[in-house]
């Protein structure tokens, strides 16, 4: 039950992540989950997509450095203690987690340098969620 994950090397430049998403979107590839790492100058984007082979070829041809690896995906009950039960089992199996992120998302959260300005500019263009709306998801 291994799942193929696609990782992409990205320099920290504005719009670079959007390019990856655009390329995949234009090719009809759906992103089922992703995570980014933070570092001053470059980062890694990890992707779970509907067609990994096609996605990799596409990104490679567009000049991105990519890598395939195998990860484990687990369903987590959406209730208090749901994540805890899964992690307890992982710990009991003696496995140590290198990194973890959630997939099959409808909402994302991210941090930017100037949050006020970003919110002002994004308003009306994307659906922004309030604190209350997020708690109620």
């Amino acid at each position, binding site marked *: 039950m291994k799942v193929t994950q696609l*990782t992409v*090397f990205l*320099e920290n430049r504005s719009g670079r992540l959007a390019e990856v998403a655009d390329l995949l979107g234009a090719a009809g590839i759906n992103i089922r989950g992703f995570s980014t790492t933070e570092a001053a100058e*470059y*980062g*890694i984007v990890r992707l779970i997509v509907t067609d990994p082979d096609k996605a990799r070829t596409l990104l490679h041809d567009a000049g*991105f*450095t990519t890598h395939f690896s195998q990860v484990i995906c687990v369903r987590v009950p959406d209730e208090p203690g749901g994540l805890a039960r899964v992690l307890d089992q992982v710990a009991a199996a003696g496995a140590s987690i290198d*990194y973890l992120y959630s997939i099959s998302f409808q909402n994302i959260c991210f941090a930017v340098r100037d949050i006020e300005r970003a919110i002002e500019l994004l308003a009306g263009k994307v659906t922004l969620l309030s604190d209350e709306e997020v708690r109620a998801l």
Partner: protein
Amino acid sequence: MSGPSPERLAPDDAGGLMWEPVAESLPTPQLAALQIERLRAMLENAYANVPFYRKKLDQAGLKPGDVSCHDDLAGLPFTTKIDLRDHYPFGMFARPRDQIVRVHASSGTTGNPTTVGYTRADIDTWGDLIARTLAAGGVKPGDLLQNAYGYGLFTGGLGLHFGAERLGCTVVPISGGNTERQLKVMRDFGATALSCTPSYAMYLGDAARDRGLRPEDLPIRVGFHGAEPWTNELRLQIEAGLGIDALDIYGLSEMGGPGVAFECLCKAGMHVNEDHYIAEIIDPETLRPLPEGEVGELVFTTLSREAQPLLRYRTRDLCSLTAAPCACGRTSARMSKPIGRSDDMLIIRGVNVFPSQIEEVLMSIPEIEPHYQIVVDRKGYLDVIEVWVEVGEDIFAETMGDLERFQRLVQAQIYNVLNIQAAVKLKEPKTIQRSEGKAVRVVDRRTAL
């Protein structure tokens, strides 16, 4: 050797002093005659004692006695840094090792450094040339020189040290670094003169200001700054920061170190010690001598060095020469500040670095793509060097830790080989500029200091 004779230390006409007034103001025809006489003796020495030169002169069909005027110089063979490397360590010495009292070496090179040897007489001559340099800035017995040049294989530290002692002033061999101690010594010992790189002089001035020290709190009067290219704008800043006259000095280890040329208080070019070195400016492409005043590659021939005579050594520094009389009364030609290099050598914090050396390091790491760029910049007054490499699929693994390990590995390799701290920047593939012909490997963003 005898100490200072009565002919030493006469005032010049610019507010400084001449350590050797007769030699420093020799009328031009006498200077030219002295140069030819010494050049013949130099060629005799080189021909008789250095197999490299015997072969070179034989191949050119020349004998030391064939030189009879200045124009004959243009027919003599050149010497390059490669020649020196090929004869590492002592193959260019014209004296047996038991007559060599000291050896210095060039900074920051892979493989073999270039070595320089001195006889007892060479050390004394060197001392005189540094004494001339210091005296031109008004330094005399009774002054206290804080010598913040690095001591060691580098010629700056010991060169200034022995010259200051020969002049008869008090020398404090503090060497480079440790700014707190520099400022404390400067104030507590009452240093009246300072020798260090121009960037460090600038840094000391800023550090003094940050600690509430005003220029008038420090008795220091004059500074001697070389080993790095610098501009007149930086001179004004150093002078304001420390309340001094900041003078440029020029030398290179192959010529024995500092003391080849120095500024008087007119600050209008560096007086070449022409009774000990013949300076020429050549076109680096055609290798032909250029007319006076034109910018070209500076070439030196030693006239008095016993241990290591060098014939028409190509410095790779680009500058011009003028023979116009100087208001200070010295008759020697003056060289302009070097404006660049005829090769691609970079000077990073006083360490000589060739891009090819960085390339060698990178190419020794198999995962690295053959595209890289070296970016040199300046933060504050300090040079910083970045090495950009592309992250190909051979390097790229799954975690940030792997990438960071790779970065550290490359940085460590560069440090091991070149002794410089370079920041390795990981770039996406195809983002480093390719060019049709010769790739642009070096981007130097430093504006002149």
